[in-house]
């Protein structure tokens, strides 16, 4: 799916064939280990860098510049993948815009920040700290997102996966422009860089210019998969927030590893479990029992966690949790028919084939493959899915250990608490 450019020790560049698309997509990211000590600094850094760089000294100048590039879509964002925190710069621009312009824009944002006396501008850092603090305080307002985040934290307790890539409000106070600039320099000098370009083959040479920017340097410590898997009994966590409906989440640890054969099995298990409208969870909890409107199971990138989430009446929490466990039990007893298994596999294959129709999906898939050092391409990946048997699914379902039951509920639950 992608071809590898020549490497330098720290920077690898990948090209994805985007001939059929009407845009070029350029993604550059620093692959950073997720650490409690630096998570907030990195999250804040993304915000500060967005505020300007030497050629475009404020956010308005940046906006005008990208509007001139036919509204090129750009961002500096934090992406959490397993126990990694990616500091990611991206620009997607119509092909009428020269690739050099897009490259120049991203390059300026990455290497030409606005700095005075070895520090980011005080005013900018102060404002961005306030904004980040407000955003962190408001995370709970998005009930669904908050419940997902909390359930992951509980399920991955005592591992780096529990660390929030959005940062922590209590860490913000101590950060100033000087400290943040030091962190930036450290990332620039030592961070592992990956560049993905999805565009025309004739243009890919131009992207190799990034190589020169990131030479030498000792790597920031990396990532070992399967490290520090959580142990102990499943936890039942109950939290309250003002809301009518309760959100129930359950986390299972399957110990499947991304990039390995077991991951293909986990994908199939997820599909059968709650991946689509024909899945056991959808058909039983929603269609048969009418317990909910939305229910689905999903995986968390670069981990072996399998989650279920649904919106229910709080008084139905126990019945729903039992229903979910029963559905998994069905899968662990090899009750899946050959036809059903084929349909599930076809469903997955279809989803993954669709990746080749969207530049962002192509990059995202490739990033995950590169991060787990499983650069085998889409076809090899899908061949593995094809090989999954009923017995594999059954074994995987048996292996899934319930880690966490998380219930976020509002008024109803509080009224019922005395019962």
């Amino acid at each position, binding site marked *: 799916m992608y071809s590898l450019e020549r490497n330098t020790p720290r920077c690898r560049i990948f090209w994805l064939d985007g001939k059929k698309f009407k845009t070029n997509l350029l993604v550059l990211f620093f692959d950073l280990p997720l650490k409690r000590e630096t998570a907030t600094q990195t999250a804040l850094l993304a915000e500060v860098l967005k505020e300007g760089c030497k050629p475009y000294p404020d956010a308005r100048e940046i906006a*005008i510049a990208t509007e001139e590039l036919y*509204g090129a879509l750009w961002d500096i964002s934090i992406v959490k993948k397993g126990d990694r925190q990616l500091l990611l710069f991206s620009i997607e621009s119509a092909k009428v815009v020269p690739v050099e312009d897009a490259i120049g824009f991203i390059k300026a944002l990455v290497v030409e920040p606005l700095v005075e006396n070895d520090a980011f501008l005080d005013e900018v850092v102060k404002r961005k700290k306030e904004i980040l603090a407000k955003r962190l*305080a408001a995370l709970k307002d998005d009930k669904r997102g908050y419940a997902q985040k909390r359930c992951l934290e509980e399920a991955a307790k005592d591992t780096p996966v529990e660390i929030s890539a959005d940062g922590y409000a209590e860490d913000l106070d101590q950060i100033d422009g000087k400290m943040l600039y030091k962190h930036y320099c450290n990332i620039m000098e030592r961070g592992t860089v990956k560049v993905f370009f999805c565009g025309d083959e004739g243009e890919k040479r131009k992207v190799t210019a990034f190589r020169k920017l990131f030479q030498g340097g000792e790597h920031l410590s990396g990532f070992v998969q399967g490290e520090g898997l959580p142990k102990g009994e499943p936890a039942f966590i109950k939290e309250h927030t003002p809301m009518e409906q309760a959100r129930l989440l359950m986390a299972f640890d399957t110990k499947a590893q991304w990039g390995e054969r077991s991951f293909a099995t986990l994908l199939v298990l997820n599909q059968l479990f709650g991946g689509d409208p024909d899945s056991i969870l959808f058909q039983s909890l929603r269609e048969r029992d009418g317990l909910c409107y939305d229910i689905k199971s999903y995986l968390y990138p670069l981990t072996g966690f399998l989650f279920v989430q649904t919106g229910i009446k709080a008084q139905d929490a126990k019945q729903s949790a039992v229903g979910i466990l029963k559905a998994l039990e069905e899968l662990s007893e090899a009750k899946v028919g050959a036809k059903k298994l084929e349909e599930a596999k076809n469903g997955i294959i279809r989803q993954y084939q669709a990746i080749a129709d969207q530049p962002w999906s192509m990059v995202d898939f490739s990033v995950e493959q590169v991060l787990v050092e499983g650069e085998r391409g889409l076809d090899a990946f899908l061949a593995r899915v094809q090989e999954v048997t009923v017995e594999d699914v059954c074994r995987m379902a048996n292996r899934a250990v319930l880690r966490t039951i998380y219930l976020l509920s509002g008024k109803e639950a509080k009224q019922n608490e005395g019962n």
Partner: protein
Amino acid sequence: MKETDTKKNGTVWAKMASGADFYFIPMPNYGEKAAAIVVKAGSDFLACNSPKEEKPVKFPEGTAHFIEHRLFRQRWGDAFAAFSKQGASANAFTDAQKTVYYFSCQENFFENLRLLLSFVQNPYFLEEETEQEKSIIESEITMYDDTPSWRVYYQLLQAMYHRHPIRNPIAGNHKTMKEINHKLLQQAYDCMYTTNRFSLICAGDISARKIIEAAEMIKKSKPGEKPLFEREPEEIKESYTEGKLGISRPIFQIGFKMMPMTKDVLRQRILMNILMDILVGESSAFYHEAYTKKYLDEPLGNAYFSGEGYAFCAFAGSGEQSKEVSELLLQHLEILRKEGVGKEDFSRIRKKQIGYFIRQSQSVSGMLMGQIEWAMDDTPAGEAFRMMKAVRKNEVDDLLRRELMKEKMVLSVIR
């Protein structure tokens, strides 16, 4: 299919013998293929003249949405699951003006297309299942009730509109939903699902000829009655409205009630997108000032909505300073009205909108969703793009002289 099929910038557009519209967007070298049936009847369809009785027939709020839920149920089983089995992923949605059923797949496109065309024309509403569906819809309504952005939007509309059904939530409410039964679903289906209200939209690397053959499955029905609306005053109902949901950071929407359009609907939509971006977008003087004054941390979201009997735009943001934001917005509107939109701003933002269109047009689902909207204005994608490139600055200035007036502004806040 008539001889007068038109091909505009790649989009095939035709009127079929059944009265349905047909749009096809060829996308060579794409694996994904998608199709949608758009029925031009949505949650606003609450009353129409009855062919049999003197008095108009009325439907409870949420009827169109209820049909959307139950239509997948067929005599032979569940169409939703059948798409899955045929390698497609299907879905549906209802909004004020339309109900849409769609799927996407890599293989078996024509099997899935036939399934789509068949199930939308074959309702099978059973009493017991209709009753059972109520608990699922109830859960859906409660889910929306918990969603701040949804609440702030409907609160805005309820302050803006006196009577027009756009003010009602799409799924109805807990009370109206209970009034619906299987007989009523059938009656409403017969009124709404007439083939002159259908549009079939297909996108992907597919043969147009074969689609047209399959589309003959749409059997012509007699034309349906138009939905009836009560007269809606031009004035807003209230200029400020506030609700509580216990969120830590308030969210708000600032809306302007506008004159409903009967022609040039798409042109106005394009002009509004440009105008709103010039007014509140990332590079706007308004946002720059609001950010400096710490009223806003990020640009306001914006959208324009129009349909039969209504038109409005809404600007969405968060924070404690919603009143200050709305006042600042009015100030900048006045400046723009007085001085006219900047020439450079206009051409830059139009360029940006063209870029957005280009980005959307490189994905099968993007084109499908785009054409679903353009079909409501009887316009093929290619024509929409051409129109976007041709709009002029003075049209935006004209629009500004007519619309977005202070006395038509509503501020809705959820805390």
